[in-house]
Each structure stands twice: as structure tokens, then as C-alpha cells.
């Protein structure tokens, strides 16, 4: 067979072998060159990449600082919220779901609602975890963890949420937390915020964010399969120093406010729909309490009840015509009404336009030009004392005719009206002390009318003040003319209680007024409460030693937007005021009560102030007793 086939010569192949050897050499030389490139010339690049593969950094969480009141009671802290997530794709609705519902004690309604929510997540969405319920009970969380293996597709994790134990008390002052948005992240790139972080939205939480938030730490880790054993050995080999940055917890804040006093104000204001109360220490300018009504529960809008609850709560808050989100103690200005009269009197006395003995005959009003300016009654012959005690408008109209409006506003500005107080939390309203120049700008071409001054003298017209400004001005009346910068934060502390920074009181201005003149005013203010004819006398409480001035400020009859016409009458009612200080003889606190659309100041605002001051006296007694006890103890221990 083989013989039949003509075999070709092997020689035909010979001449190609050399070429083949050459090709092989070239190919392997090329590969060697590539190897040299990777392993010799680019070695460092690849080594760095290999290191990046196995070394990872984990974030170490920090905790936000705690906010306490002057007595050390916690106003804002952190607590774990146990949240339950599910991955629809991995969750068996027939097998796992009933077990989960049972462990979570879901009601039939919740059961159906959540199930519906899960079923909606189809397609790609079904592989992403969705939040089922936030803040389940600790026992439920523990149960879910215990039965983890029976619940595929269910994830229960704790997350830190801000917790305000006193709910809406002092909510405007404390503030609340909100999630960072794109703007925050862009603006504060260097502060280390990440999407999903929360930051203070208003009040102390916002203003002191930098101190409260603390700083995240990190730790380098060897990651990957083999790292599970001999971890130290690998860390020593592959991790560069520094390997860890400890997180820095946020600073704690001690506030000047007394939450029990705040609670007392809340109680006293229960009968009122809307208003604001501020109490300051006249000797330091420190804020003891500030309440703006209606308020909000910072717990809800900070997210402790889930994101949906935040949206719902805000929708409700924005719709409310009583403006619960507005801090009425700081961010809104109102006509002060008769509570401004002491300042008008001081201006006239200063100009020597009147003396304490000058009298005016009040016949129920005052004719000026072609207009008749009404008084609250017929007071007949009144001097300065009577005019303040009985709140006679006629006296002040007469005074207004004598005085230049710029003097009237000038003294107001001495007492801090028309300028920001510098409290530092929440946007401040300036209020308005109208001058001739202001009217000229405002009413172009019409010219200034004398009537403006008359209205200014009784705290009406274009004059507006904030509740905080008024409180500080009364504090200055009470303390002999020192205008303080209001303070909310007493000190900054580390988490172990060491004081990092203490804020002493800051005087803004010493108002130069002869002390006997101030005493004159204080006596008149005491008369408002003590004198039988005094506008606050009827509502005075036994044992409450207080001086002050009532006010009933007329409001412009403009219907606010979105208000039910049936309820417009309410918004046309006067604002009720009371401003004062206590104790009358050696004042310690100043208090201002504003009841929006509350009607007459004497009847409506005074009772609130009376009850708050009574409670304050009780609290002061308790504190003193407690301090004495502790002092005695220390002394005994030292002995």
C-alpha cells in the first residue's frame, strides 16, 4: 500500500525551519519585553493598585453633642432607632412574611399596607432594599435578630436619631435636624458631610452645628478572603501608618434656659392659640425661657418616625395660618402698643418737655388737626404716674405733639429697638423705629404728618418690636440701664463634662439715664400691678411681686392668605401684651408675654405672666434649697 503512494521529499520543508525559529524567538522576545514593562518599569503603579485592592478604609461614626438646660437636664440627645428593611426579591411573601408580621406585631391594616408596598417593587427595584418600618421596639428588634436565619430578605439595623425628650418645648430655640442636600454638600465640602447625613436646621442645632456635629474617624483594614486569619500579621505588612483616626465626639452645650420654666409657660399659655413669651435674667441678659406658639415636635421632623412622617408634618406646618414654624420671639416684629409708653415717657423727660408732675386732662381722647385720637377711657386729670398705671393714651398723645419723632425713636434705639439683638440663633427681625427720614422714604411726596408722632408715642403706627427686644429693654429698665446681649448658650463642654469654653454675660450698652428717672418709671410700672386703678391689678396674683405694663396693640385689618373667611374675625383681633419684671423692688427677671390676637392685654396677657412668675418664684426657691443642701454637703465633706 505504502509503496503505491509517491512520498514527497522531507527536504521541501527544510528551508522554512529557520524562519519558524526566528518567529518563535520574536514572539517570546515580545512577551518578555511586555513582562519587563509590567514588572520592572511600571512595577510601582501596579504595586500601588494591588495595595489599593486589599486595603480599605472603614468609617468610624461619631456622636452628636448633647444639649442640656441650665440645670443639666437633657434637651437633645441621640438614641438608636431600630429600622426594618426588606429586599422584595429575597422575601418570600407566603413563607417568611407571616412570620415577620407576627414577630413585628403588625396590625391587620399595617400588614396589608406593607405587603402592598412590597409587591409594588417589581423588576429591577425588587433587588433594592426598602424601608419597611422605622423605630420598632427594642424587643421586636431583638426578636428579628434572634430569628435572622428564618427571615431571608429581612434586614434590621439600628441607626442614630436625634431625640428631644421634652418634645415641642423650646422647639424653635433648640431647632431640629434635616438631611443634607446637594447645596450643603457643595458648600461645606471641607466639613466632611456625606449624602444622608443630618445637620441642624434652625435654632441652636443649626447655629452651633460646627461644635455639635463632631468628626468622623476612619480605620484602614485589610480586606479580602485571607484576611480572616492572622489579621494582625497582614495589617502589619500591608497597612501604612497612620492606620486609624479616632472619631471626635461632638461638643456638648449647656444652655441658659430652664426647661421647667419653659414647661410652666406652656401650661400658662394653654388657653391661647398663638403667641410668644420670653424670660431673661436682667442681671446677665441670659435667656431663661422662650416659647413661640404654636410650635412643632422636633422629634417628628428630625426623622425619628421615618421620612414620610417628615413630609407629612411639614405639609401640615406650612399650611397652618398660625405659622408654627415661625419663631415669634425672635423672627417676627409686632406693634408694641402701650408697652412702649415707658420709653416715650423717658424721651419726653429727657427733653424736659414734661415733668413727673405735669398733668393732662383726659376726656376720652385728643384732638389733633382734623382727627380725633381715642383714649381707652375718660381718665380726667392724669400725671405721668397715672398715665402709665391707667394706660392713658391722651397723656401720650399730648406728649407726642410736643416731641420730635426722631427723639422718640432715638430713645427706643438706645434701648435696643430697631436693631438686631445678636442672640445668634434663628433669623432676627429688626423691628422698626420710624424717623422722619423713614416716613419720607416710605410715603414719598405726601410729607410727614404730626399724627405719626402721636401714634408712635403709644407704640402704634409704624413702630414694631420683637418680643426679645422688648424683654431686653424691660430688663434694662429693671437693672438700671444696662442693655445686655442675649445669651442662649452658657458653655461648651466635652462629652465627659469638662468645660471647654464658658460665655460670660456681654453688655451691649450702658444707657445713660439718671437712676431716679428710671426709678420713677419702675414705680409707675409697679403701680400698674399694685394700684387699684392699674390695668393689671385685677389679674394680679397674691404673692407674685411684679411690675410691668399692659398693652393692646391694634392690628392692620388685612386678611391673611388662605384663611377660612369664617375665621377672619380672629385675625382682626388686637394683640395682647404684658411686659414686666420681677421682683418689683430688686428685679431678677424680665418677662414679656404676647398673645397674638388675644384682645385686651390686661385681661389676657397678664394672667399668663402672673402664673409664669409665680412658678419662677417656686423654681427659684427649689433651686436655692437644692444649692444650699449641696453646699452644706460639700462643707461637711470638707470638714
Amino acid at each position, binding site marked *: 500500500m505504502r509503496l503505491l503512494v509517491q512520498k514527497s521529499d522531507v527536504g*521541501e*520543508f527544510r528551508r522554512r525551519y529557520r524562519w519558524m525559529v526566528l518567529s518563535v524567538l520574536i514572539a517570546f522576545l515580545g512577551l518578555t519585553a511586555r513582562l519587563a514593562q509590567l514588572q520592572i518599569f511600571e512595577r510601582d503603579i501596579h504595586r500601588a493598585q494591588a495595595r489599593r485592592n*486589599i486595603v480599605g478604609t472603614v468609617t468610624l461614626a461619631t456622636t452628636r453633642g448633647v444639649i442640656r438646660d441650665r440645670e443639666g437636664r437633657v434637651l437633645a440627645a441621640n438614641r438608636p432607632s431600630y429600622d426594618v428593611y426588606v429586599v422584595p426579591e429575597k422575601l418570600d411573601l407566603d413563607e417568611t412574611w407571616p412570620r415577620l408580621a407576627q414577630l413585628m406585631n403588625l396590625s391587620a391594616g399595617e400588614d396589608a399596607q406593607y405587603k402592598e408596598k412590597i409587591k409594588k417593587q417589581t423588576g429591577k427595584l425588587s433587588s433594592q432594599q426598602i424601608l419597611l418600618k422605622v423605630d420598632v421596639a427594642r424587643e421586636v428588634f431583638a426578636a428579628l435578630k434572634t430569628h435572622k436565619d428564618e427571615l431571608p430578605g429581612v434586614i434590621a439595623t439600628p441607626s442614630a436619631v436625634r431625640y428631644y425628650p421634652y418634645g415641642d418645648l423650646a422647639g424653635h430655640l433648640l431647632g431640629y435636624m434635616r438631611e443634607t442636600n446637594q447645596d450643603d454638600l457643595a458648600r461645606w465640602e471641607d466639613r466632611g458631610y456625606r449624602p444622608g447625613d443630618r445637620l441642624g436646621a434652625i435654632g441652636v442645632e443649626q447655629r452651633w452645628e460646627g461644635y455639635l456635629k463632631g468628626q468622623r474617624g476612619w480605620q484602614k483594614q485589610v480586606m479580602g478572603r485571607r484576611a480572616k486569619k492572622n489579621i494582625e500579621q497582614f495589617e502589619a505588612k500591608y497597612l501604612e501608618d497612620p492606620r486609624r483616626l479616632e472619631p471626635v465626639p461632638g461638643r456638648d452645650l449647656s444652655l441658659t434656659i430652664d426647661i421647667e420654666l419653659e414647661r410652666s409657660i406652656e401650661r400658662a399659655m394653654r388657653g391661647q392659640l398663638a403667641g410668644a413669651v420670653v424670660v431673661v435674667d436682667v442681671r446677665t441678659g441670659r435667656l431663661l425661657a422662650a416659647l413661640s406658639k404654636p410650635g412643632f415636635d422636633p422629634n417628628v421632623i428630625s426623622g425619628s418616625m421615618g421620612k414620610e412622617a417628615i413630609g407629612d408634618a411639614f405639609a401640615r406646618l406650612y399650611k397652618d395660618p398660625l405659622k408654627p414654624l415661625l419663631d415669634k420671639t425672635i423672627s417676627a416684629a409686632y406693634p408694641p402698643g402701650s408697652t412702649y409708653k415707658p420709653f416715650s415717657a423717658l424721651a419726653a423727660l429727657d427733653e424736659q418737655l414734661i415733668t413727673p408732675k405735669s398733668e393732662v386732662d383726659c376726656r376720652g381722647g385728643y384732638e389733633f388737626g382734623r382727627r380725633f385720637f381715642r383714649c381707652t377711657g375718660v381718665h380726667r386729670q392724669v400725671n405721668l404716674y397715672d398715665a402709665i398705671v391707667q394706660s392713658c393714651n391722651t397723656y401720650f398723645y399730648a406728649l407726642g405733639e410736643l416731641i420730635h419723632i426722631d427723639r422718640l425713636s432715638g430713645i427706643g434705639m438706645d434701648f435696643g429697638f430697631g436693631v438686631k439683638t445678636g442672640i445668634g440663633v434663628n433669623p432676627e427681625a429688626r423691628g422698626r423705629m420710624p424717623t422722619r427720614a423713614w416716613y419720607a422714604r416710605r410715603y414719598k411726596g405726601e410729607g410727614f404728618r404730626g399724627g405719626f408722632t402721636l401714634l408712635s408715642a403709644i407704640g402704634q403706627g409704624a413702630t414694631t418690636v420683637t418680643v426679645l427686644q422688648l424683654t431686653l429693654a424691660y430688663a434694662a429698665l429693671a437693672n438700671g440701664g444696662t442693655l445686655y446681649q442675649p445669651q442662649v448658650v452658657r458653655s461648651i463642654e466635652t462629652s465627659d463634662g469638662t468645660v471647654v469654653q464658658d460665655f460670660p454675660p456681654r453688655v451691649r450698652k450702658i444707657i445713660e439715664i439718671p437712676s431716679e428717672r428710671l426709678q420713677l418709671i419702675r414705680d409707675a410700672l409697679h403701680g400698674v400691678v399694685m394700684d387699684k386703678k392699674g390695668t393689671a391689678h385685677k389679674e394680679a396674683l397674691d404673692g407674685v411681686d411684679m411690675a410691668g405694663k399692659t398693652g393692646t396693640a391694634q392690628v392692620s385689618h388685612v386678611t391673611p392668605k388662605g384663611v377660612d373667611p369664617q375665621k377672619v374675625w380672629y385675625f382682626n383681633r388686637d394683640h395682647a401684651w404684658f411686659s414686666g419684671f420681677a421682683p418689683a423692688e430688686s428685679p431678677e427677671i424680665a418677662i414679656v408675654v404676647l398673645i397674638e390676637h388675644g384682645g385686651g392685654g390686661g385681661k389676657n396677657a397678664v394672667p399668663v405672666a402672673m402664673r409664669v412668675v409665680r412658678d419662677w418664684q417656686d423654681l427659684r426657691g427649689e433651686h436655692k434649697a437644692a444649692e444650699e443642701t449641696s453646699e452644706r454637703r460639700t462643707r461637711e465633706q470638707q470638714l
Partner: protein
Amino acid sequence: MAHARRGLRVREQFDWPLLLSIFAVAIVGLVNLYSATSPYLEMGGKTSIADIYVTQVYWLVVGGLMAILVTLIDYRNFERLAYVAYGVGLFSLALVFFVASDVRGAARWIRLGSFAFQPSEFMKLGVILAVARFLSEDPKTEARSLVDLIPAAALLAVPSGLVMAQPDFGTSIILVLTVGCMLAMARIRVRSILTLVATVAGSAPILWQYVLRDYQKDRILSFINPEADLTGAGWHAFQSQTAIGNGGVWGSGFREGTQNQFGFLPDQFSDFPFAVFAEDWGFLGSFLLVCVYSFICIWAIRIASMAKDRFGAAVAIGVGAMIFWHTVFNLGMATGVLPVVGITLPLFSYGGSSVLTIMIGFGLLMNVSLRR
């Protein structure tokens, strides 16, 4: 008499360099396989991946025995049986389409009891034998035209078409290139070569459009533009290059390469064992390994040049070309100069069919070498 003479010659002219170099590659490959799978040892529990180097030992032993068997039988018997081997290979290749088990969407395996084998691997040998027989029987002495090459082309086209359809792009490329090398030994008209090149170039777009699967296109595209997709197809090549570079000049040390030990090398025991080796042993080790592979290839050419007939020469060139292209493609894809096409590194990659094929090929080489 004749028997005794042959035995004598075998002892006198035994091909030690070939045996030693193949033996060296097998041992180093085995050790490297141990390193490649060692991360799984420490994972605790029994994982089959950690044990595959043991299985590889069995295959090497079986392969060695088959190599001895193949060496002992005079290769002229294989010449006679070439078309039979080719036919059996073709049959089992066709069988894949009916009884195959899927691996990543490609059907390449036939299961026989607990042993799964890849007919496409053995088919390489069948094609080499068949083409060698064709060349040996071709009486032409003048330069060949394309028409003369049609039988050889047909021998190649059928199996490579079937392999392509599995789909196994890598193996069909190996088939085409191996046969190409074998035919390159024969004289072919220059005009024919030019026509061939033009045809291949012209058919590339058609190949791209109608033959290649999406994942194959992805691999090629990511090779052309590696930055485009570091998470998908480019990822494997990227991590492999990182591993090789991480080895540096001296290497990280045995079982110390972090890319492998921490699980960043994909398919470290099948497609990328070289990355493991280069990371552990550095440029020094990988250069030595490249030298050994190139020695084997050049030695195969030497064996061909000393063969006593055309069949022996063609078989030697065929086996040498097969080893050459496997090595070049595997190292090429590990170092990022060629697209990732899933071609094994001879005796380094894990796999029974692959080991047996190389070992039988080695037996054939030895056979030709001993009977010159």
C-alpha cells in the same frame, strides 16, 4: 534483529532535553496551581477548589502513561490511523451539541460518568494528524496554489466550524493557526498567500457581524479600549496585569502574591495561572518560564527538521505550533497584549482534557524524535 536495533537507538538517542523541559513545566505548573488555589485552603471547610491540584496530579500521571504509550508505538501506525482519529474526534465534537453540559453559556463538555472531557481539546491532535497525513501524501513538488490546499482547508474548516459553534472562539483560533503553521512548511505560491490574506481581511467584518457572540465582542472591544469597562470584560485583564506588575523583579514569594491570595484574580487556575506565577516569582521567574516554553517550541522545530519523513516533520511542527500558540495567547492575554479568549497555558492550567492533549502531543514529539 530489527527490534533490538531500534531499542538500542532509543537508548542512545533518547531526547533528554525534551523530557526534562516538559517535566520541569509540569512540576512548576503543579506547584503554581497549589499557590493559585491555596487561598481556598484557609477558608475552612472542604472546598473542591482547594483540592484541584491533587486532581491535576492524577491527570499528569495518566497523561504521562499515555505519553509513554504513544512514544512506544511507531508513529507510522498513527499515520495509518490519522483519518480514523480525525473521524472519531469529529464525531465526539458533533456529540457535544446533543449531550453537552453548559459552562457559562458555552457547551464544550461531554460527561462520561464522573469524568467530563472536552472533545475540542483532543480534536486538535486529530486535526494535526490528519493534516500531517495530507501533507505527507501530497506528491507535489512545485509551489502550491489555493486549489491544492482545498483538502487541507476542508480538514480544518469542519472541526473549527463546530468548535466555533459551541461557542469556543479560542480553540478554533488555535486550530486555524496550528494548521496554518503546518501548511507554511509546504511551498505555496506567493499570489495564493496574498489572496488568502486578502480574503481573511475581507471576511473579518462578516465574522464580527454574524459569527461572534456578544460576550466575545465585549472581550475584544475591552481589549481595544481597556478603560471603557473596568468592571466587565476588561476587569480580568486589568487585575491580571496588576498581579504581574505587583510581582516586580523578584516576586512576592510563594503564596504571598496579594492579588491571588486576596481573591482579585479571576479564573486563576484555568485562564490566569501565569498571573499567579508572575506575582509569586517576579520577572525573574516569568522570564525563566518564557525561556523554557520557547525552548520547547524551538526544540519541536529541531525535531521536525531531523524527522525521517514528511509525516513525522509535519506532526512535530503541528504539536510545536499548538504549544506555541497556546503559550503566546495565554501569556498575551495575561499581560494585556491580546484579548481574553480563554486559551489555556500548557501544563499550567488546570484541566484533564488539556493536560492529556498536551501529554499525548509530547508523546508524539518524543516518538518522532526517537525514530529519526
